[in-house]
């Protein structure tokens, strides 16, 4: 740049010229430097494995020049600036200059996670970080793969037999190589986050949303039989080298001999060691335990106070069955049955004291407990709340929060159903109408409905006093008018089409929410719209019992004709021709989308026969049944 400031004179001009020149030189040098640096970097990344005539491996650059001598028996590609190489049966790492950054003396080097390798020497495993070098000296008989939570099993000592380690001490490793739980235990068992409990044929599940306690199947797992992997259960099975953990190991049941305790992720036991004990996952500072076989002791361990609370000691299991849920907040539910009497359910506090009457049925949903006094021969107590009839009392429900407070009392509502959010509640009045209230009992949706479904994406299916169905939103605005006998709610977000039925056993119709009207013909049955299409069984569908039909029955044996349908679009136009099972809907929809909304019968056939091709095999010596052939 030639800048001349007349006011400042000639010297300024020279100075500026000089500065400009300097800037230019600097810029040129910088550009050249960047170019060289970039080229060198690219060159380093482009080293490729090269072998000489004797089969020894080294590395060559892009031009084919050997830059790392061919002296290895095996060589792998460079990654992160390092390459794994081997001599004989030993492995190590070299850098791009051929320098051994991890000596070639390890029997195994496998990628453990990004940037960290598991190394093995002399039967011991350790960890090597590309950034920090050896972060765990080879000392463990096993380091398992990391699970999705970043935890791995480690074992110390023991014997390796084949792909198992037995009689070792077991611990847990974090993903950065630090020890979470020292390998000091004879066995470990993981405790799953969801808490399950059962007493023989009475079972319930405490999940995020709800638990029912009532007679269920015998196949439910016991509350104290949390998921135990067979090979972790007893020392004789040992640890499989390919084992991985399933949980995040926030808590782990660890055994020393026959005694077990719950150990936290910091490696410290949070309960005492009990013999033959099973635990529930600690919650709200309480850890349920149960030990014994024919005579059972059940209780809780208060982690804060370190006190044991016994619900029952040495109880003969045939005489009395006793179990309890994990604590939710300050309360837990206990189930008791003596001498085969019906189960009683009641709540206890953290001191183990019973704080409620005994109920026959309890439900947990949205963070609340719903207790029910189902008509089961129970008689009403002497003092009923004012205005409540005895009959109402028997059949009504009440709601308890996690602090043990009754937030909705018996007699207030006929029925209570918390929403999953735990913020709203569908309730039924004693006159049988339904509405939605909040925790302060403010009306959110007025009590105008005779049936009200659970909200799906903020919409409710509802039935009014005229026995007609419609859809309302959370502000009681009508989305779909109350003109129908039935509605098939669509669980997609912001659906544009809903299937409705005008009469019982009538056809299903496609209601377009934007046009506010039914479009297309009625159908016998349908699946909800997914994207632009829905699978339907149209009325008067004719099924040709041709070879394609037979092929479909080979794929779906026993499928009835009225369970074969076609695809339609939102206007009700038929998009496919061959009646097919609903399971093929995704393949058909995909094909339609790929072919600009059009496919021919030949393409539909291709979908069926593609399934046939991949699913069935045929004896070479036989004649293949004609049903399996497409042509």
């Amino acid at each position, binding site marked *: 740049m030639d800048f001349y400031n007349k006011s400042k004179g000639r010297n300024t001009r020279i100075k500026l010229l000089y500065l400009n020149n300097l800037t230019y030189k600097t810029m040129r040098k910088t550009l050249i430097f960047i170019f060289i640096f970039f080229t060198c970097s690219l060159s380093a990344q482009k080293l490729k494995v090269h072998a000489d005539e004797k089969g020894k491996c080294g590395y060559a650059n892009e031009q084919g020049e050997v830059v790392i001598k061919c002296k290895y028996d095996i060589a792998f590609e460079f990654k992160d600036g390092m390459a794994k190489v081997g001599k004989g049966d030993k492995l190590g790492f070299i850098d791009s200059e051929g320098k051994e950054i991890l000596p070639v003396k390890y029997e195994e080097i496998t990628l453990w996670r990004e940037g960290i390798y598991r190394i093995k020497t002399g039967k011991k495993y350790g960890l090597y970080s590309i950034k920090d070098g050896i972060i765990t000296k080879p000392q463990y008989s096993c380091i398992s*793969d990391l699970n999705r939570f970043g935890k791995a099993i480690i074992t110390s000592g023991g014997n390796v037999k084949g792909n198992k380690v037995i009689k070792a001490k077991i611990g847990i490793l974090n993903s950065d190589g630090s020890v979470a739980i020292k390998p000091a235990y004879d066995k470990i068992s993981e405790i799953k986050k969801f808490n399950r409990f059962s007493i023989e044929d009475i079972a319930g599940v405490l999940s995020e949303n709800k638990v029912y306690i009532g007679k269920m199947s015998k196949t439910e797992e016991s509350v104290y039989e949390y998921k135990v992997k067979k090979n972790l259960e007893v020392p004789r099975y040992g640890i499989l080298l390919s084992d991985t953990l399933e949980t995040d190991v926030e808590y782990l049941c660890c055994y020393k001999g026959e005694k077990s305790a719950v150990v936290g992720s910091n490696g410290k036991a949070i309960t005492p060691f009990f013999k033959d004990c099973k635990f529930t996952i600690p919650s709200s500072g309480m850890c349920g335990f149960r030990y014994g076989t024919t005579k059972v002791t059940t209780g809780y361990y208060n982690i804060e106070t370190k006190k044991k609370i016994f619900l029952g000691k040495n109880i003969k299991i045939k005489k009395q069955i006793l179990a309890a849920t994990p604590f939710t907040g300050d309360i837990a539910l206990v189930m008791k049955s003596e001498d085969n009497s019906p189960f009683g359910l009641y709540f206890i506090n953290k001191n183990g004291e019973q704080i409620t009457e005994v109920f026959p049925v309890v439900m947990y949903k949205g963070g609340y407990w719903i207790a029910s006094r189902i008509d089961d021969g129970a008689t009403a107590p002497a003092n009923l709340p004012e205005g409540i009839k005895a009959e109402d009392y028997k059949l009504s429900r009440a709601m308890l929060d996690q602090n043990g407070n009754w937030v909705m009392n018996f007699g207030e509502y006929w029925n209570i159903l918390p929403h999953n959010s735990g913020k709203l509640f569908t309730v039924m009045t004693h006159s049988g109408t339904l509405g939605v209230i909040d925790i302060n009992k403010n009306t959110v949706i007025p009590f105008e409905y005779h049936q009200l479904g659970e909200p799906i994406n903020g919409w409710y299916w509802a039935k009014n006093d005229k026995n007609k169905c419609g859809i309302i939103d959370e502000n009681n605005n009508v989305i779909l008018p109350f003109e129908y006998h039935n509605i098939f709610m669509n669980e997609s977000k912001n659906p544009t089409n809903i299937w409705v039925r005008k009469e019982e056993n009538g056809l299903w119709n496609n209601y377009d929410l934007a046009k506010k009207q039914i479009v297309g013909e009625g159908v016998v049955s349908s699946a909800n719209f997914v994207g632009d299409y829905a699978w339907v069984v149209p009325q008067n569908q004719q099924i040709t019992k041709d070879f394609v039909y037979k092929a479909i029955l080979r794929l779906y044996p026993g499928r009835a004709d009225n369970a074969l349908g076609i695809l339609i679009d939102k206007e009700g136009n038929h998009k496919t021709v061959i009646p097919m099972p609903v399971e093929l809907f995704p393949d058909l929809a995909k094909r339609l989308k790929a072919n600009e909304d059009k496919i021919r019968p030949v393409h539909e056939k291709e979908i069926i026969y593609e399934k046939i091709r991949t699913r069935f095999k045929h004896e070479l010596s036989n004649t293949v049944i004609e049903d399996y052939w497409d042509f």
Partner: protein
Amino acid sequence: MNKTTNIIICGVLLFCNVFHGYAQEDEFKYRRSSMYSLLINHEDQKFANEIKDAFIKIPVPDKFNDHDLSVKILTMDKKLKDASSDKENETITDFLQRNNIASRLVGKWFNRDKSTGECDMNLVKERGLYDATKYDLILAEKSARSSALLMDAGEELIGNTYVVVNDIRYIDKAKTGKALGGIARVLGAVAAAYTGINFSDLTDNIADMAESYKGFKVKINTFLYRLTWNEEIANRFYIEHYSSEADEIKCKNFENSRNEYTLTYVGKVESSGSSTSFLGINEAEPIYMVRKACQRAIDENIVSLQNEFEEFRIKTPLVSNAPLTAYIGMKEGVTEKSLYEVLETIENEDGTRQYKRVGIIKPVKNLIWDNRFMAAEEGAATANLGYTTFIKESGSNFLPGMLIREIKSK
């Protein structure tokens, strides 16, 4: 040099370093042979299921049209009798005849509805790259031009339909006498001749599952058959069996004449039995080794068949003429010793085609694309080329879109 020039030079050099300069991606449409491939799966062997699953995923090579039927997996629980012989295999031929495979291949060409006998020419038009409207018009004339068009389709398309039967057997490592644990093996002697790279394999002591996949080896006998299609058969078909609408009589005629459509045995090849490297396989998913081993061996056999049987050789278009490049590589058997004729396609007024040789080219030694399955994961030197570069041996005026076909075996 002025500063602007310097900057530009630096920029260009930088640019050249960053970009590899792949050939243009335009695809040239050209007629291909059609292939139906089958697996004979030996259920008496280990890994039978893995081999079956891998085979299902192996696509028909992209230089062929997919003419697969709905039966693809055949099973037997013993060794295939006379599998090693070059002669026509009785067991396989018997299966193909007994199940009327030839007629089914014809049925597929014409999208024949088994129930009604209705046919169409859509696939012929599509694969023959005919102008669909012009095609229909000419056919409707029922003139000499129509006949010529049908013959053209017959010769180049329908008559170039092949059945490839792959008899795959797993080779048990224990029986090969190789010691397990800690012994490096040097492999890839075939690859070394062409690329100068050997890939070594190393067995080690990780879990049994991955261990058993390392060194996974299969032996594949591939049997080639060709659909018999000549003027006589074509005439019979068009007159007595083809109908553009449902036709009970023609439908029945075809069903009763299925065994008159035949396949001709062309020949057989056996894979070299060279081991496939475990390089590039994710150790957490060693099952990919099965696919790699099977696919490499099948591709090798396809190449061998093309070397031995000229009729089976593929054509592929030049994608550029300066330099001469094509999307073909080691997977198709390209070596530095290969020679290719360059063909100019002449399309006649009646829609028929002819090919005229206009020159010969050969691959450049270090610029042969390694497009074998998982070559890139293996770290093969030329895996990222994307195409093979050729130089002229004779002829001139080569244009992109002209087809090349190998004329000399290695």
